[in-house]
């Protein structure tokens, strides 16, 4: 198998410590994923000061919750409103805010999403089951450098009584990319 052969060679030549690979895989399978981003969103929904901080300096606000680092070094949070819907893409490769959303889903890295998100965002949203009012403007952020974007979705109605953790449970990965909406309160 090609991967095993390469890993063995890189290990033998002293570039790779295989134990580090196990830790990395575990980190991105169990610790660093969209539940991090959901915590950020839930905090912003509950705490107006945090929301302002997030919109002004997302890197620092997110770091305060412990989610700083790789592929999240330069964060910008963009807020959805009834007038404006934000959606994130990387047409050139697969740039994605790992620190808050983990590794990107396959569709985010695939040709159809990368090709169509910039030119036919309403069509793409429809494929995800999202239909926005015609009056809502759509803003597409093409992540062409090292800035990473997190969408702050609109808070679902009738959630005033929910705790931060309950709110976080409503936040989906796709709602933080802008291809989905948060779940509604049960």
């Amino acid at each position, binding site marked *: *198998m*090609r*991967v*095993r052969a*390469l890993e063995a*060679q*890189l290990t033998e*030549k*002293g*570039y*790779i*410590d295989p*134990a*580090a*690979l*196990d*830790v*990395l*895989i575990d980190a991105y*399978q169990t610790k*660093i*994923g969209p539940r991090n981003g959901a915590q950020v969103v839930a905090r912003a929904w509950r705490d107006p000061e945090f929301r302002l901080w997030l919109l002004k300096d997302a890197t620092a606000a997110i770091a305060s919750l412990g989610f*700083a*680092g*790789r592929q999240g*070094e330069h964060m910008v949070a963009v807020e959805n409103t009834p007038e404006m819907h934000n959606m994130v*893409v990387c*047409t*050139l*490769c*697969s740039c994605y805010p790992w*620190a808050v959303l983990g590794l*990107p*889903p*396959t*569709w985010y890295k*695939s*040709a*159809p*999403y*990368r*090709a*169509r*998100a*910039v*030119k*036919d965002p309403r069509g793409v949203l429809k*494929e*995800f089951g999202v239909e926005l009012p015609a009056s*809502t*403007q*759509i*803003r*597409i*952020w*093409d*992540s*062409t*450098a*090292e800035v990473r974007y997190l969408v702050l979705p609109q808070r679902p109605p009738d959630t005033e009584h929910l705790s931060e953790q309950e709110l976080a449970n409503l936040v989906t990965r796709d709602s933080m990319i802008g291809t989905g909406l948060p779940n509604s309160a049960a």
Partner: protein
Amino acid sequence: MTYRSHADLGGQDVRDPIVQEAEGDVFHAPWEPRVMALVVAMGPTGLSNIDMNRATRETLPNYRDLTYYQIWLAALEKLALQNGVLSESPPAPKQVQHAGDVMARIKRGWPASRPAAGPARFSLGDRVRTLQREPQHHTRLPGYARGKVGVIEKIHGAHVFPDTNAHGMGEAPQWLYTVAFDEKELWGDTAPLQRSVVSVDAFEPYLEPA
């Protein structure tokens, strides 16, 4: 030799459906996590940088036929050969990623911001035109946004310039801007209107005053 990226997909006519995926499904074969980890763990060795990795991936002739982690693997193999990693006298790694400091390394990240060499040429609200010509090297200005007029919307400070860094020509930090374009500017009057605005993050050398 001409430089050809096969990864510049924005606005192209690709009609396959977008296949959705549940939240936990980040890997689709047992070897994929290993490839992801190998690529990340090779970072500290200093033999390559993120822009070299991207340039190597996007110029793979069969880029469009490969799955994403196949692309990562092929580029990793190619870079290992190019850098003499598998030769009799391999170059010394700058650092080796050990298990004990994986999490600290992730937390530190790899910031791309650098001190600026001079003042920014553009201010918020300025109208700018992007370069028209397609450069013969790695670049981060997508084809659909070439030769277009947009507005400076954010200024991110100076960042490592991928166009030089990808080719071992240094970081040459450049001012980085978010430039927003109206849909008609990008796609013309004939495309169905979506009420959309698209922005790219563009380095100063990509821009001229408009």
